[in-house]
């Protein structure tokens, strides 16, 4: 079935300038909003406010639970407005892409549509169009069918748009978990399978607060700080048995044959969520198979190798700026390896001991 496009015939925008395409997508969103109604939600992202304008309820229901712990006041003036729509529920499609099949970069970057002002990605694997216009403070998010939004997109919605938004600021989404106290805490990084999420989830049963298990926002500088982005946790199914309390809170129970278990911590344990804290250390997680958990001092280079490639590989565009910010961060905080043991309660204990020592120091 061909959906109505507000741009007219398919050829209308072929070869169009990026600005003209952005204008056409804006018209499509406005048409979708006209049909389905607008739902507005404001969120506090770091020290800024983003306004999310949904055309209809379909995407709003899927994408806002992960951000539910970060509400901003209705009167807050947003620095960025993100317009989100899907075609299935609204009946409106954006214009066909004005670029050719050879324009897609390895991570979906569209050649010719990424400038100092504009960012455009067609997200591989999820078929989501993401666009940002720095000059207008406006972004777009479109998917053909809301039912195709993958579960992992629901766990960290809009991470690429946030990455672009903060391009020129000392803020950077990073692939890391974060746990701590209001006085200070730690980032835990490492590639998939390194025990990062397990370590963060083990802290839910301790005095430590939880700011995220996969992507958090950091501000580098003299007083490095982490902000929570997503109140979600993803757990490998085979790992669920280690966290029996989480089992009842799994949101995608019927699809665990093909998906990680997705838990909204804001529903499961809202008191454990924290908006952010000063960063006292970067921990590089490793699974040892031993019972005990040990923290060992590591080099800035080890921290950088654990944090930068995995972050940069997930976030297309603005790589050089992100690279620079991550380089600065690993020099601003001490780096340790977190040799995570099988006795899970030891993990938060070691972190709390470290934080108590760091506080005294």
């Amino acid at each position, binding site marked *: 079935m061909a959906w109505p496009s507000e741009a007219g015939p398919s050829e209308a925008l072929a070869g169009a300038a990026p600005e003209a395409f952005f204008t056409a997508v804006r018209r499509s969103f406005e048409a979708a909003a006209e049909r389905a109604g607008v739902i507005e939600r404001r969120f506090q992202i770091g020290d800024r406010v983003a306004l999310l304008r949904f055309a209809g309820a379909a995407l709003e229901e899927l994408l806002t639970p992960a951000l539910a712990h970060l509400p901003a006041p209705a009167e807050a003036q947003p620095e960025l407005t993100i317009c989100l729509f899907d075609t299935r529920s609204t009946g409106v*499609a954006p214009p066909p892409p004005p670029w050719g*099949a050879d324009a897609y970069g390895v991570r979906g970057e569209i050649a010719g549509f990424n400038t100092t002002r504009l960012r455009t990605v067609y997200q*591989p*694997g999820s078929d989501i*169009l993401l666009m940002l216009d720095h000059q207008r403070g406006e972004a777009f998010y479109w998917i053909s069918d809301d039912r195709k939004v993958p579960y992992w997109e629901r766990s960290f919605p809009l991470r690429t748009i946030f990455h672009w938004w903060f391009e020129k600021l000392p803020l950077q989404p990073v692939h890391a978990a974060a746990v701590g106290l209001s006085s200070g805490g730690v980032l835990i990084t490492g590639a998939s399978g390194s025990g990062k999420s397990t370590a963060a989830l083990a802290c839910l049963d301790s005095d430590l607060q939880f700011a995220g298990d996969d992507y958090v926002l950091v501000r580098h500088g003299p007083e490095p700080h982490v902000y929570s982005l997503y109140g979600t946790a993803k757990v490998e199914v085979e790992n669920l048995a280690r966290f029996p309390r989480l089992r009842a809170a799994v949101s995608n129970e019927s699809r665990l044959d093909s998906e990680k278990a997705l838990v909204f911590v804001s529903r499961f344990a809202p008191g454990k969520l924290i908006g952010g804290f000063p960063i006292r250390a970067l921990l590089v997680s490793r699974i040892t198979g031993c019972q005990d958990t040990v923290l060992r001092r590591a080099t800035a280079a080890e921290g950088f190798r654990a944090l930068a*490639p995995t972050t940069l590989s997930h976030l297309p565009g603005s790589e050089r700026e992100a690279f620079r910010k991550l380089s600065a961060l690993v020099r601003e905080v001490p780096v340790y390896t977190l040799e995570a043991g099988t006795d899970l309660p030891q993990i938060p204990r070691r972190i709390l001991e470290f934080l108590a020592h760091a506080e005294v120091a």
Partner: protein
Amino acid sequence: MSSNPQSIETAKAYSVAGSKIVWQCFEEEVVVINLESGNYYSLNPTATAIWNLVAAGGTISSVVDDVCKGAPTEEQWEQVLGFCGRLIAEGLIRPGEAGDAPRAGALPEPARAAAGAWVAPTLTVYADMQDLFQLDPIHDVDETGWPSRPAEET
């Protein structure tokens, strides 16, 4: 001078292979990331010194002289050329072209001045991010003109 198995032009300057190759110097190593392939690399202090000299626009001969204090042994020549050959094979450096600007990072003096025992340059390759950069290219579009394919986690 020893034979040159990599056919590297020792009198020629090489340069970092484009803006998608980024690196950061730390006290004990350089970390290089290829933003096109997803591969990243760790260089030991000798390799760090070589990398910085190449990036700064030095010829391979001058790089060898510099890191070997002007009197390279045959073994050192082979090791430096072998290392440069690996950098080329990994797509990290290429023969310099007119208009290439030196991309000197801060040269870590301890590495450059590594007096005493010679340590061969090493390049450790990490390819664990490669999968994220090797998704199938876009082939098919639906009737709206947009690509569509089954979702997979990234």
